[in-house]
């Protein structure tokens, strides 16, 4: 059963326990540059609070609700697409989508072309630019924990239930129930976005005011290049055959060129 996480944005109080749990479980290094940043600062920076050693980030936005500006904390991390662009874009299979949900990365297979970063529909991949031998870094959705029937580190510590771990199908039903009950925006971000993601977001304030890519395609991204790649071998062989025919025909009875 594919797992997922439901993020109920209005329930988040911005305590950042999830960020701490993530750092501890994944043994991410403490980074000097992050020391004095607040959730407001991170929301404004191009990197969205995500860095090689910061796989998740709590960012504060001030969207409008009933004509008034309200504070909302939004957790950012890899969305773990159902059919991920990074997996299909990687020419050395360094990315993999596990049946349980997580999209994981293996640096030992990575060449470092960064096509995945260009392809990611949610721009969550980060690169270790400062290292001589860099890799791509992102949330792995605690793949080893999930494989052992444990929940992700971040959800395990959330004190308010703003992020809950479970079966994606059940979470989706729960999300729709909450939208109705609480009068939320009628959209589960992640249900159809980029063909669906393991992480699902619901909110009482407009998504586009909280840096969500609301205009993202609903078709799975790999479907855009699938047909092309399938046709390529046939086009190649066919074209080579045509060329061979032309070569023989045009060189008939002629002196070969040096």
């Amino acid at each position: 059963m594919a797992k997922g996480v439901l993020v109920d944005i209005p329930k988040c109080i911005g305590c950042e326990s999830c960020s701490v749990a993530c750092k501890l479980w994944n043994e991410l290094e403490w980074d000097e540059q992050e020391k004095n940043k607040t959730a407001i600062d991170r929301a404004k920076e191009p990197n969205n609070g995500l860095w090689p050693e910061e796989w998740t980030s709590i960012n504060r936005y001030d969207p409008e609700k009933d004509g008034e500006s309200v504070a909302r904390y939004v957790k950012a991390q890899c969305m773990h697409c159902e059919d991920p662009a990074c997996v299909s874009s990687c020419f050395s299979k360094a990315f993999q989508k596990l049946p349980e949900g997580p999209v994981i990365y293996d640096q030992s297979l990575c060449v470092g072309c960064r096509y995945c970063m260009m392809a990611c529909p949610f721009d969550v991949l980060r690169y270790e630019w400062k290292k001589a031998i860099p890799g791509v870094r992102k949330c792995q959705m605690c793949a080893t924990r999930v494989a052992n029937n444990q929940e992700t580190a971040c959800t395990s510590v959330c004190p308010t239930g703003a992020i809950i771990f479970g079966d994606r199908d059940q979470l989706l039903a729960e999300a729709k129930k909450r939208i109705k009950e609480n009068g939320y925006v009628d959209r589960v971000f992640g249900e159809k976005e980029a063909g669906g993601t393991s992480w699902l977001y619901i909110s009482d304030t407009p998504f586009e005011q909280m840096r969500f890519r609301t205009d993202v395609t609903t078709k799975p991204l790999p479907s855009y290049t699938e047909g092309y790649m399938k046709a390529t071998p046939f086009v190649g062989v066919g074209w080579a055959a045509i060329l061979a025919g032309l070569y023989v025909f045009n060189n008939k009875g002629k002196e070969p060129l040096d």
Partner: protein
Amino acid sequence: MELVTTVVSRAGAKMSSVRWKFRMTPMRWVFTGIASAAIAVILVRFVLGLGATTNLNDQWPWGLWISFDVLLGVALAGGGYGTALIVYVLRRDKFYPIARSAMLTSLLGYIVVVLGLLIEVGQWFNFWRPYVSWGHASVLFEVFWCISCYTVIQILEFCEVGTEKVFKGAHKYLKKAMPVMLIIGITLPTLHQSSLGQLFYLMVGKVNPLWWTAFLPVFFLLSSFFVGAGMIVIESTLAGKALNHKVEIPVLRGLVKISAGAMILYLMLKITDMVVRGTFANAFAFDLPSIMFLSELTFGVIIPIIIAFSSLSSTRKGLIWFGILTVSGVIMNRFDVLFTGMGKYLNQYGGSYVPAVSEFIVSLGLVSIACLAYLFLAENFNILGNHGSEHADDIEIKDGKYASTAK
């Protein structure tokens, strides 16, 4: 300064030696200088990493090196497969005099691309991974296989020329293999030239609709084909000055007309594409992307077509203008797809990218290395000449300047 080295190439009863020549001119010193600076930067890049030598960042994981060294390098080297198609497969023998130089330029272009890629990727020592770990859903997988195989094929094709002078024993075998190598050597670039365009098709909603289209592969392929003539004109003009060799106008004009034919097809497809997707409003919005898009088409395609099919192309000046405009048009196009096309999206939350000086140095350095290699090879092998196979034993030293063999 003259560098002349004599090496014994065949030991045994019949002693014959081969002379290597490389005359340093001020321009060649400039190339050497830029190349040395680039090598210094490349060393720093390998020791300290990409962050220390480039302005690349998480918003702009691809920058100058990808667009210039790879996208553009491959496109501008398109003259090689185009010429091979016209000369060897279609047997338009009229163009034979430029075949070897066009194919050598292409080979050097690809070597620059491969070197550029090794510098650009993070874990260069893992470059072989895709040969064994097949990410066959990726368009880049195809690009990788085709570019690497095609580079090997081109080296073998050049060996056919090279063995006229050294390792002569292998010449007849290479000559026999040439038809197969030529056909593979046209098929592979056809595939990867188009795939380089298809790479960007995955970035749905990120590239400006003026450039993001299902036609991307066709546009990349056609433009790599028609830029070939432009490159050959420029290259033969430059090489003509440096090596005292001129290609006849009718040969160049014929090529330019073939190229302009492909341009007309390209232009018609561009217009069709705009009609189908309804992007006329974007094209004539006269914001930055629209201005870039229109000037790319006007200066890089429409004016060259006019030059090609008018009396302008019967003069060297006209031909040179055709070359400059066509090449600039394709340069603009490749930069536009990445920088102009993606700028709005990638910079939406304050991201920015301006290539670092060190990035320019490396790109220029790689080009300088290619120029030096071209000059060396053109001076020492039968690239520009009349193409009679040269047999070391029959030829005496012609004059001091072009001594290529000695008994």
